[in-house]
């Protein structure tokens, strides 16, 4: 049994490995406590739980916005407790992030917003133009390239955020309540895009309150309650 487990670990290394991860804010508040979880490449994970359960904190730890106070957190072969700033930046370049508040730059066009991750990775303008156009066509915004985010609807803004997260073709996409402010139909369409990315092999980890989306878009559910893992797989 031991041998088979080791063999499995060697050949099927989890993309994200958490073991008794604890996160305590400087204020003393315990955000996460003893979370043990493995996430494998190609999974679609729903992080669910009440407000303050620790969903956003967990996501922030996965891109190095927060460091665990104790335990083991390994993301894409990066030890997040010991990783240098350079390693964390490298990890972020391999991670697509969709924020709850979109974090779109209102002074930049849709094109410039979506091109930003490629620009950060050092792509030349000539090279990134076809890629950005392709991604925006994929999310149905090819005709809004030169619009500014403020001129877009909430659903369109979320699609721009998805396009930005997927434009560098990362192996992992982290989405923090991407459907939080959208109506049901728009939320389903946004989820369709994320599901389609997942079918292409991208691991998607999405924090959400919208449990009804699970009916139409099934995935692995990880439930958090008061900073602890309540239920593993639903």
């Amino acid at each position: 049994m031991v041998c088979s487990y080791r063999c499995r670990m060697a050949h099927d290394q989890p993309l994200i490995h958490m073991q008794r991860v604890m996160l305590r804010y400087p204020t003393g508040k315990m955000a996460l406590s003893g979370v043990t979880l493995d996430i494998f490449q190609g999974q679609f994970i729903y992080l669910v739980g009440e407000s303050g359960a620790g969903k956003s904190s967990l996501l922030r730890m996965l891109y190095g916005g927060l460091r665990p106070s104790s335990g083991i957190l390994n993301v894409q072969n990066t030890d997040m407790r010991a990783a240098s700033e350079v390693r964390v930046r490298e990890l972020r370049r391999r991670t697509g992030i969709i924020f709850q508040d979109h974090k779109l730059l209102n002074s930049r066009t849709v094109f410039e917003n979506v091109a930003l991750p490629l620009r950060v990775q050092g792509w030349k303008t000539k090279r990134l133009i076809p890629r950005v156009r392709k991604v925006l066509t994929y999310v149905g915004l090819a005709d809004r390239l030169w619009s500014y985010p403020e001129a877009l609807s909430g659903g369109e803004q979320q699609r721009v955020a998805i396009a930005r997260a997927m434009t560098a073709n990362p192996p992992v996409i982290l989405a923090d309540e991407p459907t939080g402010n959208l109506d049901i139909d728009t939320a389903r369409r946004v989820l369709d895009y994320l599901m389609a990315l997942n079918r292409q092999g991208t691991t998607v980890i999405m924090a959400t309150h919208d449990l009804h989306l699970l009916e139409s878009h099934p995935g692995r559910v990880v439930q958090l309650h008061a900073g602890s893992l309540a239920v593993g797989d639903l």
Partner: protein
Amino acid sequence: MNRTPDQIPEQLNPRLPGGFNLPPFGIHQFLALIIVCVSLWALGVMWLAMQAAGQWVGSWQQDIHLHVYLDSSKSEQAQKLSASLSAIPHVESVRKISADEAAIWMRSWLENVGLEQKELAHRLPVSFELTLLKGQSEFIFSDIREVAERFGAQVNEDEINLAQAHQWLSQLSYFAGVASLMLALAMALIISNTLRMTLLARADEIHLMRLLGAREWFVRMPFILEGILLGAGAGVLAWLLLWPLVWTTSDWFTALQVDLSTWGLLLPLLFGGGLVGGLGSVIATARVVSSQSTS
């Protein structure tokens, strides 16, 4: 009007942030350019003034001699006076000028008016020429006066005044250096504050770039480049604005036999401005901390 994909040009030039792309030039940058330009112009004027003063004094500062005169009736004291003058610290040498040499010099100075050389030699006092060491002490002139008075001799006060002017000029150049340094610091802070405003205005963009994994140099480079360009641009502008001043004062300086080299200030102002701008931008960007920094 929205464009369809077919209408999107293949070659376009989006304004992408980071790296070597400069942030947009706004009113803050324009004001900083003007303020730094005025400061650099003041610095340029000061340097030109020092250059002019240096040239004006330079005609005699390389070879400063003081003369001490002893009445010919007290000529028996001459040897003792010479020895006492030689004993003063910072006096390099004391040379007794012969009566004939003094008479020849006097005749030429008086443009050969009808005076007999022998008569002049008889009337002129015994003269000593003192050569001073470089880096004179503070009290050398009073020491020379004191020794001269002890023997009833006189010192050429005009020469002392010139030598003191040379000392004051050296001190002035020191103060000019300190003032230049303080102005440079002030300019660096002006540029730093201007860039700080730009950084605050673009805090979201910087924060997002860091979240996307941008390297620090990539985030900071546009602001450092902007600082260097602001400083260098202000330097060139200040240099151009020095020319009207030089042209309007050229007759006056020509009369003083001063030939100002305004071209020589171009590179110091250009690179000095760039350096100050770079320093200001480094100060400004050093304080940019993102709430989602990796550490």
